[in-house]
């Protein structure tokens, strides 16, 4: 009997999970192959120190922003402003702490709120005016970058000498794991739960899957669409704080071009830009995959001009692995 009609006829607890697993293994497949190749390519790769580096780089790079981006992408949207909002976060954080003399918790709160505020603006136009997210978030990308330049007058703001609470955050460890990595994993855990076990997560997924159906079910779609941009903006601000903590300075140079990396992480993690499909764990894998690719090229000493070519080829190979793993399990 056909699996379709079988599962329809007799409740089979396996089918959806298998489907889950296929997608899952697609990304996991890439990840594992990549780790294998990397450890063969360079001895330095599988050292504890290096792995910690990679996780820390991902955490202060695309990692945290990818969480918010996944929510946006699930609704069929896109948020190009994340990198710029991270720059605002970084600069504003340093400005509040070093120039205005705010306490760190208060500064963090204000920064996250302002990131969320940027998200409110984008989200408002996308959700209530139904303007295309690509263009609106592109506009927000320009605006936020401008704001970060204006706040900082284009130069880095030193946040404080080593020993100050935030300044140590970026390089500090907790249970032997870099603090930014712990923060990132914690947010992924929360995001994963929200996505799978709350009405919010399911409705966001449903909106990308069939917005009309959700609207006809009496759900106030606009509010949900607005919120994913707010989440994305807030998390981008968090990423900015992490970046500031890591270098001890707030600078408007944070996150230039990051939007493409972040979206790539989400898509390599198996999410569809057409909405409705994507998972938290796979997104984390997607971000790690991208992080490993640049790391291994540096370790292996691929010459600069060729790094671009290698990067592209490795990404294509990685996607082919996904293709093959996913097909063979059909």
């Amino acid at each position, binding site marked *: 009997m056909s699996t379709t009609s079988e599962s329809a006829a007799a409740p089979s607890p396996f089918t959806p999970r298998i489907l889950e697993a296929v997608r899952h293994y697609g990304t996991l497949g890439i990840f594992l192959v990549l780790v294998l190749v990397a450890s063969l390519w*360079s001895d330095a790769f599988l050292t504890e120190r290096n792995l910690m580096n990679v996780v820390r780089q991902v955490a202060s790079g695309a990692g945290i922003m990818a969480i918010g981006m996944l929510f946006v992408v699930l609704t069929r949207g896109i948020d190009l402003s994340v990198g710029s909002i991270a720059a605002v976060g970084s600069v504003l954080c340093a400005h509040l702490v070093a120039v205005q003399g705010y306490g760190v918790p208060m500064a963090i709160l204000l920064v996250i709120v302002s990131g969320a505020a940027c998200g409110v603006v984008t989200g408002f136009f996308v959700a209530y005016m139904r303007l295309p997210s690509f263009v609106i978030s592109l506009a927000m990308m320009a605006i936020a970058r401008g704001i970060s330049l204006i706040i900082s007058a*284009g*130069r*880095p703001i030193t946040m404080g000498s080593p020993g100050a609470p935030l300044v140590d955050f970026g390089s500090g460890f907790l249970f032997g794991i870099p603090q930014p990595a712990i923060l990132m994993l914690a947010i992924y855990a929360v995001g994963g739960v929200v996505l799978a076990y709350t009405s919010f997560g399911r409705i966001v997924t449903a909106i990308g899957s069939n917005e009309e159906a959700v609207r006809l079910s009496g759900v106030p779609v606009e509010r949900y669409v607005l919120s994913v941009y707010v989440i994305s903006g807030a998390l981008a601000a968090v990423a900015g704080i992490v970046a500031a903590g890591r270098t001890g*300075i707030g*600078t408007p140079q944070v996150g230039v071009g990051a939007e493409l990396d972040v979206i790539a992480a989400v898509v390599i993690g198996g999410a569809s830009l057409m909405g409705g499909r994507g998972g938290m764990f796979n997104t984390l894998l997607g971000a790690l995959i991208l992080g490993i690719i640049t*790391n291994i090229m*540096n370790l292996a*000493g691929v010459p600069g001009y060729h790094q671009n070519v290698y990067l592209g080829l490795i990404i294509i190979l990685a996607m082919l692995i996904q293709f093959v793993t996913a097909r063979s399990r059909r």
Partner: protein
Amino acid sequence: AEDCKVGLTMPSLNAPYFAAQVAAVEKAAKDKGCEITTADSQNDFSKQINDVEDMIAKGIDILILNPRDQEALVPVANAATAAGVKVVVMDSTLNPKANAVTQVRSSNDENGRLVGDWIAKKMKGKPIKMLLLSGNQGNPGGLERRMGVIKGIVEGQLVNEGAVNLQILGQGWGDWSTDGGLKAAEDLFQAHPDANLVVGENDSMVLGAVQAAKAAGLEGILFAAAADGQREALEMIKEGSYGATGLNDPDLVGRTAFDIGYKAFKGELPEDFPKLYLTPADVIAQENVDKYHNPQSVF
């Protein structure tokens, strides 16, 4: 009251060095009562060409051009000159065949050479294992800077020791920023924990490398940059955790460029003014840092 219109176009505003330069030019222009328009090319030379075209259409008298690309901006610089604009090339290199009043910058090559010479002296008797932090691929200024440093080290070692003992273990790309320098240095230190010298093409990236070394628990590494003299770097030079950097004062370069342009506009510039004007080069190290350190500096 404004009797002159000035256009200033920068490869990017998103860097402390450029920010300082803009501040210097804007201040100098306002002091002379000129109206000034600043454009940010956002690292895209076609946008810079567009910006210059727009400024010509707007009717500027003086153009201070910090070119994003040494060749691509040549035609539009010529067009500006043809439209009667006094063009002064500032900071970055433009092909000398371009029709401009002059080019004003610090000497990448000479600064690099001085820093390299200083390193050779500092590390006399030790084999050098160097890591390079470069800005972005294809940047000619960066190339001049690193070649200058290498030239200086080689020449210095030859003079001091009669033999060259220099190994370049690896090159990383840090996009001129602290963050980028940090990331590149993390990976480089991982691959080459035995390095004892980090040289960057600007201070921002080396500042990131200092952090990376600290995080990796590496000690005994000498840090140096071929250029700039950023305030944070000078402070670290003062306390001894940073070796040396080349003198590339954005304020001086910016002011000089504007002054020359203004003189040309007023017709006060001598006919035979040289086509290349280099500000004095120097290496800033602990010995002379107080001469250059200004805690109030924008840069």
